[in-house]
């Protein structure tokens, strides 16, 4: 019987700083490890522990995967001290990804906050692989300050893709910023889409999910078409350890991507 707790050794192949606290790592697992956009993996820093992350790279690239990581705790701080060529562990993939087969012909609104754009990047790249299938890809991204913006070099490239737009905001005025100012919901006022069929994929800090959810419902979206990336502390990823339980749901198995309809019965699901 397979040992579900065993990490797959994976070599760090590239390290790219995004912001002072956010870095993108590229890993090459020594055994096959593929995922669908939205699924997550458990990353082991040897001797320190594991933490769950959603890859940020294109799921159609099978040999390597990238994860964009913000330094917030023991595992991520230990990871920061590692170098190209060092070995970490990966387990997965776990959970449900986005229901991409349902996205065909629809307008897709991607709403990201801060490092929350990382898991969405995996989705965006997967959408770009078949960009003609979708009516529109509208990326709406908010960060606290210009320094906190991830994928600074990629965002302008994305804006050039067919049927794609990229809108950005930062939370407060800043001398280096000429664009929109205000929290992410300011980018959700103008939505020239068919709100009955449009799909939204949202990822960011819990408070952002809460207000984005309210706004998208206000705008007339179907709660079955709003996908949230739920943040919980998955220790096992296997639907056993209980850390990610929310009512009868295990976020690691029933999520991490969950629709607004699924979480509607909870007073404060985020």
């Amino acid at each position: 019987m397979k040992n579900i707790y065993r990490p797959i050794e994976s070599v760090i192949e590239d390290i790219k700083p995004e912001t002072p606290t956010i870095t993108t790592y590229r890993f090459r697992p020594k055994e096959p490890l593929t995922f669908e956009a939205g699924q997550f993996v458990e990353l082991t820093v040897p001797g320190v522990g594991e933490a769950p992350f959603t890859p940020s790279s294109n799921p159609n690239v099978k040999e390597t995967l990238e994860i964009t990581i913000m330094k917030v705790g023991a595992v991520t701080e230990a990871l920061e001290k590692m170098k190209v060529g060092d070995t970490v562990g990966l387990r997965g993939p776990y959970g449900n990804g986005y229901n991409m087969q349902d996205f065909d012909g629809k307008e897709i609104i991607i709403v990201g906050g801060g490092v929350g754009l990382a898991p969405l990047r995996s989705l965006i790249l997967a959408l770009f692989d078949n960009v003609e299938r979708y009516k529109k890809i509208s990326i709406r991204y908010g960060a606290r300050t210009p320094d906190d913006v991830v994928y600074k070099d990629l965002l302008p490239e994305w804006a050039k893709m067919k049927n794609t737009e990229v809108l950005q905001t930062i939370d407060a005025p800043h001398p280096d910023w000429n664009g929109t100012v205000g929290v992410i919901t300011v980018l959700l006022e103008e939505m020239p889409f068919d709100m009955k069929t449009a799909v939204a994929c949202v990822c960011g800090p819990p408070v952002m999910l809460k207000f984005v959810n309210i706004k998208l419902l206000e705008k007339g979206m179907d709660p079955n078409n709003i996908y949230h990336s739920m943040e919980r502390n998955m220790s096992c990823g296997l639907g056993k350890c209980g850390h990610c339980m929310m009512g009868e749901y295990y976020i690691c198995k029933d999520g991490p991507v969950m629709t607004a309809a699924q979480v509607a019965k909870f007073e404060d699901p985020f």
Partner: protein
Amino acid sequence: MREVFITRENLRKLIGRWAKDFRVYVPVTFDIMNHEETPDYELVTDGVPETLMLHGAALATNPKSFLFYPREVVSKYPSSQAEADVTAPKAVIVGPRGCDLRGLKKVDKVYWSTEHFTEEYDDPFIIEKRRNTYIVSLDCDSAKETCFCTMVGGNPWPEDGFDVNLSQVEGGFIVAVATEKGEELMKGADDLSADVQKSQTEERDRRRNSVVEAINRQNHEFDTGVAYDQHDLEAPLDVWQYVTQNCVACSACNRCCPTCTCFLLVDQRAEGGYERTRNWDTCLSIGFARTGGGGNSRANLAERLQNRIRCKFEFSRDRYGLVTCTGCGRCIDVCMGRIDMREAIKHVVTEKAKARA
């Protein structure tokens, strides 16, 4: 199901035979401070202990501990060293009660393939122990004052989930053999057993009914009028705050509960590299739901106790089709704040009814 009668003396002999081929755990009394009998399991090493105790109610330790260890090495890395050892010795556990066996159903649901978890999610460590563990359960012939199995759909005798069950009758036990593993234990025991008399099965039924009556009697005051599998205990936090006022988040209830199956994986340095252990974890701990960024969906203790109790009555029911409070009463026995599951539920149900009125 095959049934035979065995005398008390012959049962001791039979347990002695098992001990030659298995690790055998039996219930014994520990005479603490000369005033209290607290039965618990002991490994048979040198003959069946004189303190063997085959009457009373559920033991201190719940049998999940024989399958789901408080701490167990589940992986070793890097791959240059041998993987964690999955093998488990053949063991016989004598003494689980009906409540305990209902508890093991939850352990099975979480760790073994079910409609929720396909094979790729099987925990090889727990499954191997489960396969190699033989369950010899016992009827309860009395009730602790904290027993309430009959309030949560159970009975003070094992209904399923055992290999062999022992029911106390005058002079010995009715032995019910339920599985192939049970037959394996009873193989060659014909010299020790006899046919069951009708008067003996009648005696067993009488004894069982009297324990049911005792449990019903002592729980009369906790009746809520709501069926045990129909609870909706979602209530404003102040209702739960009242239940929580004496809770110090020690998590003793989590640890003694036969259906608390949560854990935390911990990595550390070990000889030859690193090892990963699976450790019991407790949802009453403040850090249980904390996330990397510092968020915590259950930062308040009342939210956590509410989560624990609702998990037993609602979340497990909705996910696994099992109410996972088995009425064993252990969480009441161990609570230093004297929080009583039965009172807690009664309080919440009563307050919700008041709010509706």
